[in-house]
């Protein structure tokens, strides 16, 4: 007894979904990225200029964005 999409499931054998970052490394990555983001934010605070928005603010925002996602996953709220 098979449902109609069973063939689709069977045809995708060997293509199991693998997350970009495994559950074991989520905390380390999230913590590192958030720390980097925080340090860069501090650095930006020392010299607020329009050039530093691109040079420091941009990487800091990216680090905080991905760091926050992984940190939230690491503590058990799987977004």
């Amino acid at each position, binding site marked *: 007894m098979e449902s109609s999409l069973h063939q689709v499931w069977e045809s995708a054998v060997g293509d199991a*979904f693998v997350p970009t970052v495994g559950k074991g490394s989520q905390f380390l990555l999230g913590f590192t990225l958030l720390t980097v983001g925080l340090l860069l934010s501090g650095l930006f605070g020392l010299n607020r200029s329009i050039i530093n928005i691109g040079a420091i603010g941009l990487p800091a925002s990216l680090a905080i964005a991905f760091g926050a996602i992984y940190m939230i996953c690491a503590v058990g709220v*799987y977004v």
Partner: protein
Amino acid sequence: MRLLAVGAAVFSFASTALCAEKGNLTKPLASRLILPSTFKPAQNFKNVNLVHIINLEKSYPKEQINVVIENIASTSQDEYFIPFTSQQMATIGGLEVKDKKNPDGGLFEAGAVEFDPESDTQFYRVRLEQPLAPKAQQTLGITFSYLSALHPLPKNIGQQETQFLVYEFSAYCPSAYVTLKQKTEVKFPSGNVPEYTIVAGGDAESPQKAGSKFTYGSFGEVPAGAFEPVKVRYEFTKPLIHVSRLERDIEVSHWGGNLAFEERYTLHNHAANLTKQFDRVQWASQQYYNPPSTAIKELKFPLKVGSLDPYFTDVIGNVSTSRFRSNKREANLEIKPRYPVFGGWNYPFRVGWNADLKKFLRKLKTGQGYVLNVPFLEGPKQSEGMVYEHIELRVILPEGAVNVKYSTTVPLVSEEISLHRTFMDTTGRTALTLTAINIVDDFRDRELIVTYDYPLLAGLRKPLVIFATIFGLFVATWAIGSIDVGIKGKK
């Protein structure tokens, strides 16, 4: 003070009305085909040989009808009707029909038809896979179960007493067609059957007893709609576990590589009530001997291997009387309710666990499609069986998932695709809600397959939103910082 009392009365009336509406969901949800009120199944078939097996070994009656049908019309026919009373219609669950000679073949399309809501006889219509030629024969295997069809007699027993259940059925299998030869077999959980109806007619005196199996018949030619009431009363000192509502959530997280399950049960025990107050001392003193009891003492959930982080809570909070055995071969969650649940008692609770997504999700070769395969039902596996009156299964897909399709062999009454908003969502996650009614635990291992498309940009929505927020903060800091708020004049 008086105003408060009036307000409370109005509120309680409103909540009663709301609850009553909720409790009546069983009927309106069943999708039915409407036929004219003069409808009567055409006598296109006859049942050449019929064996009706009633299995009472679990806490619900499970019936199987194996019938050889013959087309007696002059043209090919593909519609076979099975009659039920309106009471049976409200509690019947999981009716499935297949070709007995071809067990690997699919299930036949079967659905309830409605022609006159006032009539006591209602029908299920089975559409044969291929029309049956005149004078040709086919063997059908029809299986179904009834919920709330067993009643304890006496209705109240002592804490350590034996329970007896009553079940009523017809010695002639209900059919819309003439039946040439038939017999009804009843399988009891034990040989202790103190009361049963004796039926005249047939080859010998009915029933014939063989251990815990009784056989009524065989009977000769019986007209359509013939009914011969039979009542049996048998020993069954086990709980009658009834779940009036199960809400099961399955949440997919691509970022976390996780599949989160949560099940919320509204559990009742329909066994005989206690004659007097529950005696904790008597209960505790007998537990060492583990006597048969009508109380629910433990529920065992055999989960998929690799399940982790289980929890078991009820209205008070965490319940510590649970065990989780997890290794390479099994992952068993064994929970003990806060108190033994006797007949007439209720126990609402919730359980949940996580699992690695890679065992349940596969990437499709074409485009950005994914296919998810999860069990439809993962409830407790009890030797006495259990029934679910209303199941609401919600598959919460990642935010931005589109083109959702699903398939399952569990009979459903409704489906809905909606948005579910929770942590860090901007638009909300795509949620597929499936509703099934009157399901028994035999459906436990049925799979649910969901396919969906998840574009890369939708996947990056969450970090992009945080990125935009933080970056906006940097720009705002710079902009506000560069405003000159000094009080000295310009030089």
